[in-house]
């Protein structure tokens, strides 16, 4: 389970809406269970079907979080017209076992969010574990 302030959830939803139909992306920084802030990242693909982080921004985000005693805990991206589930492309590219992957879906009038961990213990094997999001405040 991760605890995410409502302000952070509101921010990532607002970010997703502001870019739709293009996919939004970002990080949530915090500690292992308590998230603190949303970091907007550029979707260099600028696409409604795909997102990619800019490695330069990734390194900046890592260092920014480290400077405040935080770590990057969650990778966020939006699915403007599909559900908040991991797509085949997500599973293919989500290779960091330390990260939680949160998807915000704008498919319905009320946005939905789901989070997962993705483990690949050996080639061809994928272990997907849902992560409960507790919205605080």
């Amino acid at each position, binding site marked *: 389970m991760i605890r995410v302030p409502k302000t952070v959830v509101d921010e990532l939803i607002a970010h997703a809406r502001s870019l739709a139909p293009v*996919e939004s992306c970002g990080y949530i920084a915090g500690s292992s269970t308590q998230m603190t802030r949303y970091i907007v990242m550029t979707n260099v693909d600028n696409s409604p*079907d795909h*997102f990619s982080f800019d*490695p*330069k921004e990734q390194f900046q985000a*890592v260092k920014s979080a*480290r400077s405040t005693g935080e770590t990057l805990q969650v990778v966020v991206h939006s699915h403007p017209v599909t559900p908040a589930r991991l797509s085949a492309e997500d599973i293919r*590219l989500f290779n960091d076992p330390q990260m939680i*992957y949160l998807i915000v879906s704008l498919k319905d009038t009320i946005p939905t969010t789901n989070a997962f961990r993705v483990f690949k213990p050996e080639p061809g094997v994928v272990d997907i574990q849902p992560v409960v999001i507790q919205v605080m405040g």
Partner: protein
Amino acid sequence: MEITINGDKATVDGVKISVSDLLKARNVDMPDMVSVEVNGTILERSEFDSTQVGDGDEVEFLYFMGGGR
């Protein structure tokens, strides 16, 4: 030699080590999916074999992040 890896000091055997070998030593499973920065400069993946790091160098690595609907 002592290298700073992702903000933490780490002792690594030898005088120099290639970025490729360093990633292996750090048990990075998918080095093709990793971005590496050495002393503030982001490397091309084609430079992982040829780039050597040594005492006092600062290395950052993280997984490329992308996905799709």
